[in-house]
């Protein structure tokens, strides 16, 4: 209890001391006035309410404990008034019943809210696991059919060259050239694969440079505006990048846009990424890219909004909460 008192916000503590002094002062006044009707109770009750309210308001917002505390305090206040006004009919029972009802309702609602939250988290987690799983499968397949196969060919060609080196140097040279071509192709495939997982310029220079680099390669004018006070976490940064990349790819491929705007900014502890194009609209989530994007965004507890009426324009907006 003492620990809690010490942890109490300094302003609230100062307030408590002031109130205590005031209460003592009126007690002295009452005693000096020769006692009689105990009127200081009418000062103690409201000041006590104010300090108690401050105490509970300092508790974390949304905690059920805080509501219980405040309701109990109100009930005690009402009982205090009832006692100070000379007992009689126990009228506080009505407002207290009302308060209890509201509190009960609140508890039930919180329960429902948390159940809905659990459901959302379960779905988005399953989506995230599925997305990660399918990405790993794709990488495995790409490695197997691409770089691995190329390296087998490379080894084979080197073996053949070794075998032919003395017998048929010309043939050996051909095999060596093939080996080099296989190595070059393997490198190219590995590079494309790595870029799809985490683009190097994003790691090197952050979102602004990476999104600008995306825009450079577009055949349509792209206006980029990135305003972030500091670099977000890697997960948020990567997701924001892929929202921009996927939104841009979508606009370039389907929308016949003549202008694309990519806008990244902060809004209340979240990074907001918006891709806007003036194309013909009708973007659908069913086909590939945008669905994967939703899973990626929701895995971070974010939300993705796609507005794409026929005839355009198309807006893709992701809100990615940042836990700092």
């Amino acid at each position: 209890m003492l620990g809690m008192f010490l942890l109490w916000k300094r302003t609230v503590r100062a307030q408590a001391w002031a109130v205590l002094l005031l209460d003592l002062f009126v007690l002295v006044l009452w005693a000096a006035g020769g006692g009689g009707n105990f009127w200081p109770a009418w000062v103690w009750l409201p000041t006590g309410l104010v300090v108690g309210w401050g105490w509970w308001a300092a508790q974390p917002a949304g905690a059920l404990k805080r509501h219980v505390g405040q309701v109990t305090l109100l009930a005690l206040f009402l009982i205090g008034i009832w006692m100070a006004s000379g007992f009689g009919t126990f009228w506080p029972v009505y407002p207290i019943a009302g308060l209890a009802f509201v509190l009960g309702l609140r508890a039930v609602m919180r329960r429902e809210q948390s159940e809905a939250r659990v459901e959302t988290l379960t779905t988005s987690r399953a989506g995230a696991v599925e997305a990660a799983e399918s990405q790993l499968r794709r990488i495995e397949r790409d490695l197997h059919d691409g770089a691995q196969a190329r390296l087998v060919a490379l080894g084979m060609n080197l073996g053949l060259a070794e075998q032919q080196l003395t017998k048929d140097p010309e043939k050996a040279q051909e095999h060596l050239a093939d080996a080099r071509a296989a190595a070059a192709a393997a490198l190219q495939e590995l590079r494309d694969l790595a870029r799809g997982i985490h683009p190097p310029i994003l790691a090197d220079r952050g979102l602004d440079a990476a999104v600008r680099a995306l825009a450079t390669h577009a055949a349509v004018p792209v206006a980029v505006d990135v305003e972030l006070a500091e670099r977000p976490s890697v997960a948020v940064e990567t997701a924001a990048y892929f929202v921009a990349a996927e939104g841009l790819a979508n606009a370039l491929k389907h929308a016949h846009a003549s202008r694309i705007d990519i806008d990244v900014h902060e809004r209340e502890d979240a990074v907001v990424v918006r891709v806007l194009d003036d194309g013909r609209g009708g973007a659908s989530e069913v086909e590939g890219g945008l669905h994967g994007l939703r899973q990626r965004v929701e895995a971070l507890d974010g939300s993705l909004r796609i507005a794409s009426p026929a005839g355009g324009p198309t807006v893709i907006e992701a809100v990615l909460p940042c836990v700092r």
Partner: protein
Amino acid sequence: MRAVIAEDLALLRDGLTRLLRDNDIEVVDAVSDGDALVHAVVREQPDIAIVDIRMPPTFRDEGLRAALELRERVPETAILIISQYVEGTYARELLADGRGGVGYLLKDRVMDVEAFVEAVRRVADGGTALDPEVVAHFVGRRDRLAALTPRENEVLSLMAEGRSNAGIAEALVLTVGAVEKHVASILQKLQLPPSDETHRRVLAVLAYLDAS
């Protein structure tokens, strides 16, 4: 010719050293991070520094940053950046001062030893070498390049890779004279201020990269 190599992977550092020595290029130092590179180049004043982009301690773009620092501190040393990936942004930064003596190639290019060594010599001599992959990103760009004919565009993209007029002539099956005419026309259309040939070629390449 004297060279300094900065590459953190020992396998590649040793391989590169051997490759250069086999081609009569003296490797005066081979280091594995950006700070060591700056020290080595300031001390040795080599003709060229061959630098990997991603190195310790952060494994981001410290090689490039060190290279940009060296461009200012030791302007006589040419810089050839080699990397597993190419970014147009980085190419622009390297060329930004409008001087020659810079190159930016994928590491893959070492597989063609002759072409690689040729690129090293060309950059050390004050020329440029941009990876075809960087150049390809910028093919068919708008704006300033719109005035160029398709043929001039082709010539400019080969110029961006760092090829000489003779090299361009060979690649496009043209006479050197015809290439010279195209180059003159490109420089004129891009309204580049008159100065020496190398400088104007670098500026043309920059215009090419900036056209986006």
